[in-house]
C-alpha cells in the first residue's frame, strides 16, 4: 500500500473547507432572479381546512404569488410516497394515508405545510405568510401510539381504520409461544424507545429553479440521495420529467437519516418555480426543523425472553407499537419492521423468535429512519432484557451473554438474517479488559464513601449494515434496488476522478474513497477527486444511509478500479512487450516483475488517451464504471461498557468511563472510523440521558427549541475508549462492515443498564434525566 492507502490515518481532505467556513451548502446557493419562499404551516395537530384567504397577504410588499394545496392538486402533483410496501399478517397491504405536499383538506400535525408565499425577500415572504388567513376547524388529536390504537381514539385517515397502518409479524409465533410456556425463567419488560429529533447542524433547504427558456429544472436540496430524489420527484410527484431535472445536493451539513426523504418543501419549491417562473429558495429555521424533519424511534414494546434451567435462551417474543406520525415517510414502513425485528436475535443463539409490530398513525411529525434506524430499537430491547434477566437469575451480565453467544458462522437466525462472521467473545473480552470490569467493585465501594452511586452497564450489539442485497429487499417489499454505482475516470495526466452514487454529508468520503486509489495505484490522495451529489455529473446511484457507503459504495469503486487496473496492465504489457500477468502497479509505477522495465503511471494513462500504441482492437481511454449489488448485509458487532456515577441527592448521572470495542471488519481510515464512533456514541448517550421529544395532549410540540430539547454537549460526555477488532466481512471485496451507526445503536442500553445498576431500580426510561433518576431512587428506597 502507499502511505495513504488502506489503513492509513490520513487527515480528511474536506476539512479544510469545512473548518474554515468555506463549505457550500444549499443556502449558500444563489441564482440570478432568485426569490424566497416561506411556508404557511398548520398551528393545529388536527384540523379541517375550511378555507384559505390570501387577499391581505397578496397586498403585502414584495409578494409575488401564494400557492396552496388546491393549486397543487389542480397541477396533478402527486402525493408523497412510501418506498417500501409492508404487508400486514393477514396479507393486506399497509394503509397509506394520502399525503399531499400542501395540505388541501385536512392537517394532521403541527407544522404541516399548507401554502407557500413567494416574495422578493425572505423577510417579506415570512411577513406575508403570517397574514395568510386559514380557516381551520379543529378536531381532537392523539399523540401516543397506544392511545391512538385505543377504542374511541381520534381517527386520522379514512384509509386506515383504527389508525393502524400495518399489523406486521415475523418469525414463528407457535414455536416462540411454546418455548416460553415451558421455560424455567421468563423475563418480561415494557420498554419505551423515546422519540428523537434528528437535529443535523444544517437545517433542510431547497432551491427550485425552472428555466422556461430551456424547459429545464434544477433543484438544489439537502439530500443524502439526490438520485433517488430525482427519480421520485419525476416518476411519482410529477413535478418535472426525469431527463429535464437536475438534482444537486452540494455540501450537506449532517443528515443522520433525516435527509434521505423527499419532503414537501423541495417538491413545492420546484413546482412554485415552474408556476411563478422565478427561482424559489427556502431554508428551514430551527423551529421548522423541530416540527417537520422526520423524527426517529418512538416505540412501545412488550418483551418476553425465556430461559431454560441452564440459562440458555429458548424463546423471545416481542410486541411493538411503532409511532409513524401523521403520514408515511419514504422508508417509514421498513424502519420499524425489516430494519428492526430482523435484528432481535442480537448476538445470541435463539431458537425461536416472534415479533409483532403495529405501525400506528398519530398527530405528530412523520417518523422515519434516524441513525441506526430500527437497529437501536432492537438492540435496546435485547440488551436491556438480557441484562435484566442476568440480575433476576443472579448471574453476571457477561456470563449470561457468553452462555448464549453465537459461536459458529455463518449463522441463520429465525428472523431472516444470516450472519456471515463475527467473534462476540473477542469483543466482549476486549471491552471488559479496557473497562477494567474486574476492578469495578472496588470502585463502587470507593464511590459509596463519597456518597455516590456507581454502576456498570453492558451492551453487546449487532447490526445489519451495507444495505442491501437488491433481490432480497425486493422480495421484502422495497421499491428500489439497494446496489451502488461508481465510475473511475482516469485523466490523461494520470489523476483520477471517482464518480459515486454515495453522498457525503460528514462521513469523509472525499478522503476514504481516495485512499482506495492510493492503495491500488500508489497515487497521492491529493491526485484523486471524488465527485458526488449532482445528477448531471454522476450516473444513477442510491445514496448514503444504513452505513452503506463503505460496504456497498466502496465495493462498487473497487469493481471499477479492477477494470481500470486490468486495462492499464494490458496497455503496459503491450508497450513493454511483457506478459500481462507479470505487470504490477505500485507507487505510481507500472512495472514488469523481476525486471527493471517500467512505465510511469502517467505514461500509461497518457498512452491510453493518445491511442498511439494500444493493443489491437482496444478502445482508447481509461474510464470504467461498475454497479455493485451486495450479496448479503454486513454485521458489525461489538461490546460497549458504560460506568456511571449517580448523585443520589439530585439524580444527576455522570458517565465516568465509556468503552467501545467494535468489530467493523477491515478499516480504511482508523481516524475517521474513530470519529464516527465518537459521533454515534454522543448521539446514543444523548438519547439515553438527554433527548426527550415531548408533545402535549393537544399535539403541540413542547420541546421545539434548544431551550427545552436537550442536545448532548462535550460536557456531558467522557473521553471515550475505542478499541477495534477485526473479523473481515466475507461478502464484499474489502472485507468491511460499516461503522457509521454502531455508536448510536450500541450505547443507549449500556447507559441505562449502568444507571439502573447504580440505583438499584430497573424501572427507568430514557432519557434518564436527573429528575427521573431521582424519582427512581426514591421509588426504590
Amino acid at each position, binding site marked *: 500500500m502507499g502511505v495513504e492507502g488502506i489503513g492509513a490515518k490520513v487527515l480528511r481532505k474536506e476539512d479544510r473547507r469545512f473548518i474554515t467556513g468555506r463549505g457550500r451548502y444549499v443556502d449558500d446557493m444563489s441564482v440570478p432572479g432568485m426569490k424566497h419562499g416561506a411556508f404557511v404551516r398548520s398551528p393545529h395537530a388536527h384540523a379541517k381546512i375550511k378555507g384559505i384567504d390570501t387577499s391581505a397577504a397578496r397586498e403585502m410588499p414584495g409578494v409575488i404569488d401564494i400557492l396552496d394545496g388546491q393549486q397543487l392538486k389542480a397541477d396533478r402533483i402527486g402525493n408523497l410516497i412510501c418506498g417500501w410496501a409492508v404487508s400486514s399478517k393477514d396479507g393486506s397491504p399497509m394503509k397509506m394515508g394520502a399525503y399531499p405536499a400542501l395540505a388541501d383538506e385536512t392537517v394532521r400535525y403541527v407544522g404541516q405545510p399548507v401554502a407557500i408565499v413567494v416574495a422578493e425577500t425572505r423577510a417579506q415572504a415570512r411577513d406575508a405568510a403570517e397574514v395568510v388567513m386559514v380557516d381551520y376547524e379543529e378536531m381532537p388529536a392523539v399523540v401516543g401510539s397506544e392511545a391512538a390504537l385505543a377504542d374511541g381514539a381520534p381517527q386520522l385517515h379514512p384509509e386506515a381504520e383504527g389508525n393502524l397502518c400495518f399489523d406486521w409479524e415475523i418469525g414463528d409465533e407457535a414455536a416462540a409461544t411454546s418455548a416460553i410456556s415451558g421455560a424455567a425463567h421468563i423475563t418480561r419488560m415494557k420498554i419505551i424507545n423515546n422519540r428523537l429529533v434528528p437535529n443535523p447542524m444544517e437545517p433542510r433547504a431547497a432551491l427550485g429553479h425552472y428555466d422556461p427558456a430551456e424547459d429545464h429544472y434544477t433543484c438544489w436540496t439537502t439530500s443524502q440521495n439526490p438520485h433517488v430524489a430525482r427519480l421520485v420527484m419525476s416518476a411519482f410527484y410529477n413535478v418535472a420529467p426525469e431527463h429535464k431535472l437536475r438534482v444537486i445536493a452540494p455540501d450537506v451539513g449532517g443528515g443522520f437519516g433525516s435527509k434521505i426523504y423527499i419532503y414537501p418543501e423541495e417538491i413545492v419549491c420546484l413546482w412554485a418555480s415552474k408556476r411563478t417562473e422565478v427561482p424559489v429558495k427556502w431554508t428551514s429555521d430551527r423551529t421548522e426543523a423541530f416540527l417537520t424533519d422526520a423524527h426517529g424511534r418512538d416505540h412501545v414494546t412488550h418483551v418476553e425472553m425465556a430461559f431454560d434451567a441452564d440459562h440458555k435462551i429458548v424463546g423471545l417474543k416481542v410486541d411493538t407499537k411503532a409511532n409513524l406520525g401523521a403520514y408515511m415517510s419514504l422508508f417509514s414502513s421498513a424502519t420499524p419492521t425489516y430494519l428492526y425485528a430482523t435484528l432481535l436475535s442480537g448476538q445470541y443463539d435463539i431458537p425461536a423468535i416472534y415479533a409483532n409490530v403495529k405501525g400506528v398513525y398519530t398527530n405528530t411529525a412523520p417518523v422515519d429512519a434516524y441513525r441506526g434506524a430500527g437497529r437501536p430499537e432492537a438492540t435496546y430491547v435485547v440488551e436491556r432484557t438480557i441484562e435484566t434477566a442476568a440480575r433476576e437469575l443472579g448471574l453476571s451480565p457477561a456470563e449470561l451473554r457468553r452462555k448464549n453467544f453465537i459461536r459458529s458462522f455463518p449463522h441463520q437466525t429465525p428472523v431472516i438474517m444470516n450472519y456471515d462472521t463475527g467473534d462476540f467473545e473477542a469483543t466482549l473480552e476486549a471491552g471488559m479488559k479496557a473497562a477494567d470490569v474486574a476492578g469495578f467493585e472496588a470502585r463502587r465501594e470507593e464511590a459509596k464513601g463519597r456518597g455516590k452511586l456507581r454502576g456498570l452497564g453492558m451492551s453487546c450489539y449487532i447490526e445489519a449494515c451495507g444495505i442491501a442485497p437488491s433481490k432480497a429487499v425486493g422480495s421484502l417489499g422495497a421499491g428500489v434496488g439497494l446496489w451502488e454505482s461508481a465510475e473511475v475516470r482516469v485523466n490523461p495526466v494520470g489523476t483520477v476522478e471517482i464518480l459515486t452514487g454515495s453522498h457525503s454529508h460528514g462521513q469523509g468520503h472525499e478522503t476514504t474513497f481516495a485512499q482506495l486509489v492510493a492503495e491500488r495505484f500508489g497515487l497521492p490522495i491529493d491526485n484523486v477527486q471524488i465527485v458526488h451529489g449532482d445528477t448531471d455529473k454522476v450516473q444513477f446511484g442510491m445514496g448514503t444511509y444504513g452505513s452503506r457507503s463503505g460496504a456497498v459504495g466502496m465495493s462498487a469503486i473497487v469493481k471499477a478500479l479492477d477494470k481500470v487496473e486490468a486495462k492499464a496492465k494490458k496497455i503496459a504489457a503491450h508497450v513493454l512487450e511483457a506478459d500481462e500477468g507479470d505487470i504490477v502497479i505500485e507507487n505510481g509505477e507500472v512495472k514488469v516483475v523481476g525486471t527493471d522495465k517500467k512505465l510511469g503511471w502517467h505514461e500509461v494513462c497518457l498512452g491510453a488517451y493518445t491511442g498511439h500504441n494500444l493493443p489491437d482492437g482496444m478502445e482508447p481511454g481509461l474510464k470504467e464504471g461498475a454497479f455493485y449489488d451486495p450479496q448479503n448485509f454486513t454485521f458489525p458487532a461489538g461490546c460497549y461498557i458504560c460506568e456511571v456515577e449517580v448523585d443520589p441527592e439530585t439524580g444527576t448521572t455522570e458517565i465516568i468511563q465509556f468503552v467501545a470495542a467494535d468489530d467493523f471488519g477491515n478499516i480504511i481510515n482508523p481516524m475517521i472510523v474513530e470519529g464516527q464512533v465518537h459521533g454515534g456514541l454522543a448521539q446514543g448517550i444523548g438519547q439515553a*440521558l*438527554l433527548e426527550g421529544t415531548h408533545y402535549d395532549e393537544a399535539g403541540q410540540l413542547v420541546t421545539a427549541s434548544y431551550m427545552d*430539547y436537550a442536545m448532548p454537549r462535550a460536557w456531558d460526555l467522557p473521553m471515550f475508549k475505542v478499541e477495534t477488532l477485526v473479523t473481515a466481512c466475507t461478502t464484499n471485496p474489502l472485507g468491511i462492515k460499516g461503522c457509521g451507526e454502531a455508536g448510536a445503536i450500541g450505547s443507549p442500553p449500556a447507559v441505562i443498564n449502568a444507571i439502573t445498576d447504580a440505583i438499584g431500580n430497573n424501572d427507568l426510561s430514557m432519557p434518564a434525566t436527573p429528575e427521573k433518576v431521582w424519582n427512581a431512587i426514591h421509588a426504590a428506597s
Partner: protein
Amino acid sequence: MYETSYQRPSSIDEAIKLLGDGEGEAKLLSGGMTLIPTMKQRLAMPSVLIDLRHISDLKGISVDGSKIRIGGATTHAEIARHDGIKAAAPSFAYLAGLIGDPAVRHMGTIGGSVANFDPAADYPAALLAIGATIHTNTRELSADEFFLGMFETALEENEIVTAVSFEAPQAGGWEKFRNPASRYAMCAVFVAKRTDGSVGVGVTGAGNNGAFRWTEAESALSGSFDGSALDGLTVDEGAMMSDIHGTSAYRANLTKVVAKRALAKAK
C-alpha cells in the same frame, strides 16, 4: 424577525428621549441575548431598537473597598474577569462566569438581565441575597423592591437600569444546578453572609414566581452559617415551578440540596 430600525444614543438623556418619541414600540437593546432571539422568533416586534452599549455612563466597574458598583451595560464576561470583584466578592464573579456560554457572556449585560428578570436568571438570586441596590435614571431601589415576580420588575416605562451596587458580603457562595437543555438554572442558590451579620439566601430557577429569598433558611443560618442548619427545613412545593424538566417536588428538593452546596463553597 420583523423589520425594525436601530438607534445608537451616546447619553442616557438621549436614550430616554428616543424612548419617548418613537412611533410604535421602542425597545432598549443591551446585549441582545434575550431580546434578539425573541425578535427572531417573531415574539417581539419593536419598531426601533435603542442600543445602550455605547453610553459611557452605563459602562464600567468600580470597587472601593467592599463597595462595588457595576454599570448597567457591563457584560457578564467583564464582571467575571474583573480583578477587583474577584478579590472583594469572588462568588459574584464566579456566578457571572457560569452564565450561558462564552458568546453569551461577551454580549449579555447585567442591566439587561436585571431588567428582564427571567425566572431562571442568575444575578437576581445574588442581588437579593446580598441586598444590592438597583440604580435607574430616576431612582434607587433595593433588590427586594425591584424584583416583583416572573418577568416583572418595578421599572416604569422609560426607565433605564443604569447600575447595580452592593457591599461585598463577608462570605458568599454560588451553586447552580443546570437545566439539561437550556443550561439556565433549574435551581441555583446564592448564600451571603452580609457585613451586618445577617444572612441572605437567594434562589433562582426553582420558584414559580421568579427568584426569591428563602427566608426560613436565612433565619436558620443566622445562628450558624453552615449547611447543617438547613437539615430540619422543608421547601414549600406550592411555591415551586413545575414543567417537563422537573416537578415542583423535585425543585423543592433541589433548593435545599443546592443551598447546602452553595454554603459548602461559601468564602
